[in-house]
């Protein structure tokens, strides 16, 4: 049983990776996030009596949950209707998540898979599981040890948007990477 399960996981992972790589090469790792320079403008009117802007203490603690979200751009990737394909936008976000996770190897995450309301309850539980695993497999292919990644599906039980329209559905078809341990 375990062997078969392991095999299936492996096959699923390979399929997911293959499907992704066939479409488009993985995006290059984004440049290291440099703090934007906030030097006072020296161009133009030098006599505008404006104090030089000062960086307020908004910087996130490196290795924190807030830092993870800010560095990755988002903790959430979205999916098409009844789909678990990792699209370009999701690829970008997950790529940054993987980089961040490589930087903090002690961090463990749970990926929560969700569905919109346009599927039946049990099918959507399975669909949420597919989405969570698609995101997990992508992170795994980026070098994150899959032992660090748990998955859970909530199906259509935990939407973030309440409406019954495309805007709400789009937000609800998602996989959310939640840090469960090891963050600062």
């Amino acid at each position, binding site marked *: 049983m375990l062997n078969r399960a392991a095999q299936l*996981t492996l096959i699923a992972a390979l399929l997911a990776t293959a499907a992704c790589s066939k479409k488009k090469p993985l995006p290059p790792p984004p440049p290291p996030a440099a703090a934007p320079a906030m030097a006072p403008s020296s161009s133009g009117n030098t006599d505008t009596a404006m104090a030089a802007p000062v960086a307020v203490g908004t910087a996130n603690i490196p290795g924190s949950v807030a830092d993870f979200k800010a560095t990755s751009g988002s903790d959430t990737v979205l999916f098409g209707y009844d789909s678990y394909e990792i699209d370009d936008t999701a690829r970008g976000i997950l790529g940054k998540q993987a980089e961040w996770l490589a930087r903090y190897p002690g961090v463990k995450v749970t990926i929560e898979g969700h569905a919109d309301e346009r599927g039946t309850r*049990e099918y959507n539980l399975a669909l949420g599981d597919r989405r969570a695993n698609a995101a997990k497999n992508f992170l795994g292919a980026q070098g994150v040890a899959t032992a660090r990644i748990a998955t*859970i599906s909530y199906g259509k039980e935990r939407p973030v948007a309440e409406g019954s329209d495309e805007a709400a559905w789009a937000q609800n078809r998602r996989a959310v990477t939640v840090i469960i341990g090891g963050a600062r």
Partner: protein
Amino acid sequence: MRIPLLLLALSLAAPAAAVLRVDINTGIAQPLPIAVPAFAATVPAATQAGTTTDLGARVAAVIAADLGSSGLFRPLDPAAYTTTVTAADVTAPQFASWRTLAAQALVTGNVTANPDGGITVGCYAYDVFSSEELARQGFVTTAANWRRAAHKCADLVYSRLTGETGYFDSRIVYVSETGGKTKRIKRLAVMDQDGANHRFLTNGQNLVLTPRFAPNQQTITYMSFADNKPRVWLYTLGTGHQEVVGEFPNMSFAPRFSPDGNALVFSMATGGNTDIFRMDLASRRITRLTDAPGIDTAPSYAPDGAHIVFESDRGGSQQVYVMNADGSGQHRISFGDGRAATPVWSPRGDLIAFTRLGAGKFRIGVMKPDGSGERLLTSAYQDEGPTWSPNGRVILFFRTVQGRSNTALMSVDLSGQNERRLKTPLDASDPAWSPLLP
């Protein structure tokens, strides 16, 4: 909360041949007018549930509500009744006065307090125009259990007039819902088929879904997110005992009992792939039934236990399949427009109810076990999750209102008529109808 089994049926006499008959196959344009006057107190006496006179009135009201809810009968307004039925009238009705009210059938009866504190409810059905007796039966039970005696009487009348078994002495387990869409609180709840004797089983702390009765009705299987682990659980009604059926590494869900109650079938998800498994409850050993890449879920046994209907997206979209109970012979049976989901085999074996997804809607439909003869019974934004009445004539499901969190239990008969909302204290979803109580 054990279901009282102390309900003894007494044979009072052999009924005469019937002339009155209700055809339930075509859908009823004109429900049969039926009079159900307050049952007489054989001797006015006190019981733990009130006097026999009071009980007589309450029993009649429950019977009238049961029969009326089927859509096949139209109980007359008790305000129109010109006389009170005396103990003597029960076995010798004044047919002329009931004819005046245009009642075609008459249900009368009596309530007797027994020396042991229990009660006997005598139930009599008559054809008003031919002045013939159609059926009679006595039911012995505890005073507190009087509603079940009333449901048994309603089942007797329904059965005598339609030729089908009844379904009123049965219960419903479902998920009670409250709160906003993003933070829904869900609790298991049980109630009688008519909404009475409502009781919550879980406190809402954990997300719970998809309860189903065991054939003996003392156990419920369901899915719970307790400890953030989505798994299949069992709930024992008598004791309130809850236990997880297995410590699986991945999500287990969509549980249903086998017809003999000795096994569960359910889905397990592994790395994004969902298959159906069978678990022997005595040994807790599991056997794989499906092995296709894709989502195989929502299994439901045929009443003879030989086949299982389920849904799978192995062909590209969610469709209904049938397999032998050992997993062999898997074949697709649904071929209509859109997707087909949540199949449930009728307790009569003749039909499969399911949810049809298409054109932005979920609708409840039925088809034969070979996939032919599909008929859609409802049309709304989202009607999902059918469950059968014990006699296979009525389907209960839940309806979600577009753009809102509100969900409600609805029933519809096999002809697609008599759509009714079942009252619940809060919003409601995932209904499962019990078999007839013993």
